[in-house]
């Protein structure tokens, strides 16, 4: 791996394992204050995104640790 030349403090360095380990809890806490799925309805680049994802702006959220994320979104 080629390291960045930008200075980063140790407390701002995250390993893949640390990131994966905290995902479920971050998601749980975030869902306490806002709906589970909050993807914007439109933004720049919509044209090619919608072409790629069958009219949506991205693929479905399919996180194995939270199956409810794939439930239909309330509008």
């Amino acid at each position, binding site marked *: 791996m080629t390291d*960045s030349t*930008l200075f980063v403090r140790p407390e701002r360095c*995250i390993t893949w394992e640390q990131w994966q380990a905290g995902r479920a*809890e*971050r998601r749980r806490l*975030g869902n306490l204050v806002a709906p589970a799925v*909050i*993807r914007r309805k439109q933004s720049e680049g919509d044209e*090619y995104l919608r072409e790629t994802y069958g009219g949506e702006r991205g693929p479905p959220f399919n*996180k194995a640790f939270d199956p409810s994320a794939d439930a239909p979104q309330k509008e």
Partner: protein
Amino acid sequence: MQRALALIQAETDLNAKALLLAGLVSELFREHGFEPVVVGGSAIEFYTDGAYMSGDTDICWAGPRTPTMEQRETIMRQIPGIRCHGGGKSWQFAGLWVDLLGEIDYLAKKEFAKFTTPIGKVMIIPVEDALVGRVYAARKYVSGYNEKDDDCAKKLMTAVLTSSGVVAFDWDEAYRVAGSSKYNCTAEFDAVRYEVETELAKEQSGTNLIP
């Protein structure tokens, strides 16, 4: 390269797949002396797992050099099977898009975050900038209120308030950025913080919340 491509293609989780792809792209550009940094909704998604990001990851450039369009094309074409859209701005691999944008614009004096993936390291915009920028977009920019951005800001605020965020957070720096002439949204920042603290307090007392 083959191992990296296989890892990305095999990953079924959107967020992890996007982070791996950002790792590959970052590695390729760093090998040529550039400093890519992930910004925008995908940066917030990596910080929060908030189900916010779309199918693209935005990358800007820090450091003294910004790649020319020709350099971007040459470097990205190292990835077998990659597709291009928009004259070298947008690139697709394994069902995901990467947008290569301009020089990064941020205010926080604190450093970027660095996520190490199995493929490569990914630099991410300072979390203080990400949060203040989203509060501004939600409550101050143009119409004055954007529901999706507001939800996004609340999820990121939750991450930093509960220490469930993956990196350290500097409140003094966040308030300095919020009070800057670029954003001037200290009141809005305080309001989001208060609302989130209130919701989280309800959870602690067992009386909440979003159905």
